[in-house]
């Protein structure tokens, strides 16, 4: 994958060296005691590229996210975010979590949630530069269509509206990498579509690399450049047409798995039980 040279660059974006991968993993390994989650993972994600991370529960998808966020050390190998080592609170990374119901009486408005994404990790009251801050928050809200409910209590918004705010919260700091950890869970189809469209638009206009952890590839299939498929320490990286095949998945799961293409969807049959001993819920791959 290559960068999109035609993508417009904005004055507010930090300068990044040209040709540097947004994410770079070299021989990456994570171990917890005796258990090796994955080993020898090499992955370069280019600016503007959309990589889906798939695999059963317990295969280390969330751990990969934690490594990139600087919350988990590699046991071996190297990781770089836009050329630098990951660190907590890095402005290079935006993070979209799973949609979780917020308390109805949470004393927080939509714009506060987005604002926390910009400077919530900083010390002090943040009294200087308030006008510039407000402008950035307003712009991020407008970009996700969240302006109409910017001043509403977040706990009283719908799941879809909350998740749009989550995208704005992740993007307001103008990150080089957008990490999405199952952001579509518990959203209906229309809202899933809205969220994926927002993320797609962003990576096309601002060259933001997207690492999208999901158990279900279909909602993002049209956007995916490459797939990282993890199963019990084994993994495969490549375009969906190369990875999402009966042969490759059978090898990864070490059992017979059939991958069917029905219209524009991918249906995986046989993987539900293959990894069952390492994840409590069956994988809802339709």
């Amino acid at each position, binding site marked *: 994958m290559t960068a999109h040279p035609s993508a417009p660059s904005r004055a507010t974006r930090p300068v990044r060296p040209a040709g540097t991968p947004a994410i770079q993993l070299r021989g990456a390994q994570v171990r917890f005691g005796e258990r090796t989650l994955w080993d020898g993972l090499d992955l370069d994600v280019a600016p503007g590229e959309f990589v889906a991370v798939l695999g059963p529960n317990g295969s280390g998808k969330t751990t990969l996210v934690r490594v990139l966020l600087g919350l988990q050390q590699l046991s071996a190998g190297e990781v770089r975010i836009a050329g630098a080592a990951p660190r907590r609170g890095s402005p290079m990374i935006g993070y979209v979590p799973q949609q979780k119901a917020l308390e109805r009486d949470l*004393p927080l408005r939509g714009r506060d949630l987005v604002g*926390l*994404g910009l400077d919530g990790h900083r010390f002090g009251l943040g009294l200087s530069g308030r006008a510039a801050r407000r402008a950035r928050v307003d712009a991020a809200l407008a970009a996700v269509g969240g302006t109409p409910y910017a001043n509403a209590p977040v706990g009283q918004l719908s799941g879809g509206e909350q998740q749009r705010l989550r995208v704005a919260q992740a993007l307001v700091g103008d990150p080089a990498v957008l990490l999405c950890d199952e952001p579509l869970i518990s959203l209906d189809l229309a809202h899933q579509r809205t969220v994926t469209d927002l993320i797609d638009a962003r990576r096309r206009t601002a060259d933001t690399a997207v690492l999208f952890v999901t158990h279900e590839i279909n909602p993002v299939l049209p956007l995916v450049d490459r797939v990282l498929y993890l199963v019990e320490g084994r993994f495969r990286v490549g375009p969906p047409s190369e990875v999402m095949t009966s042969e490759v998945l059978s090898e990864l799961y070490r059992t017979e798995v059939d991958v069917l293409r029905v219209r524009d969807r991918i249906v995986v049959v046989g993987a539900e039980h293959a990894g069952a001993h390492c994840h409590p819920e069956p994988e809802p791959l339709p």
Partner: protein
Amino acid sequence: MIELLERLFTFEGLGRQLTLDFVQNAFLACAVLGLAAGLLAPLIVARGMSFAVHGTAELAFTGGAAALVAGVSVGLGAVAGALTAGLVFGLLGLRQRERDSVIGVVLAFGLGLGVLLLSLYKGRSSNKFGLLTGSIVSVDSTDLTVLGIVAVVVIATLAALYRPMLFASTDPDVAVARGVPVRTLSVVFAMLVGLTTALAVPIVGAILVLSVMIVPGAAAARVTASPVRATLLAVLFAEIALLGGVFLSLAPGLPVSGYVAALSFLCYLGCRLVARLRGRATVAA
């Protein structure tokens, strides 16, 4: 009925009382306490820590009772008890279910121990009840100094940590991802709550600490979702309850805590009414 009302709401001799030193001390102490409690209240509500504050207050009571029996400063005992509770509850983090039961266990033990200690105490009985129901007579200049120091510590800590504290309190998952030390902040916050609670216990009493630590924040959350406005309103409500409570309790010579609790409850009812009139349970700021 009329007699009862006259007993509860009298202003006889109020003018003279207002010139007394201990009365002025009480007003000053309550003003400072209201500021600290009001600043913390919206965050306590956001973190769902009402029960933890109650538990902290009961352990402050236990500490105070132990100090009374040991013959050392009751205030110091209360601070020690509340800080211990704060440390324990802070380490429990934000996992609601586990936290709930642990607080219940610690609270029950602390309260029982406190009652036992009080019955061992041979001194004046007003000292005993002072811890449970509060008393403004007890405020002296040493207490004022300690209150002032604690207020400065609370304000300075909040000023330095306000944004990460708000982030960790309202949106802990993303806060962790953004590198906010959520667990450390949880302990720091519980310590601030413990300090403030410990100072509130001798004034409003262990039982009624919630009326200044929680109610102002809960009331504010009814009418605004803006963190800044909620904080300003909570300080206002805490001051109304505390200063108004002292003022109303002076002439009748009755415990201040009942008036404080009633006034803060009225603030809460008023906020609910405003929210209802606006047509929603909680309204955008």
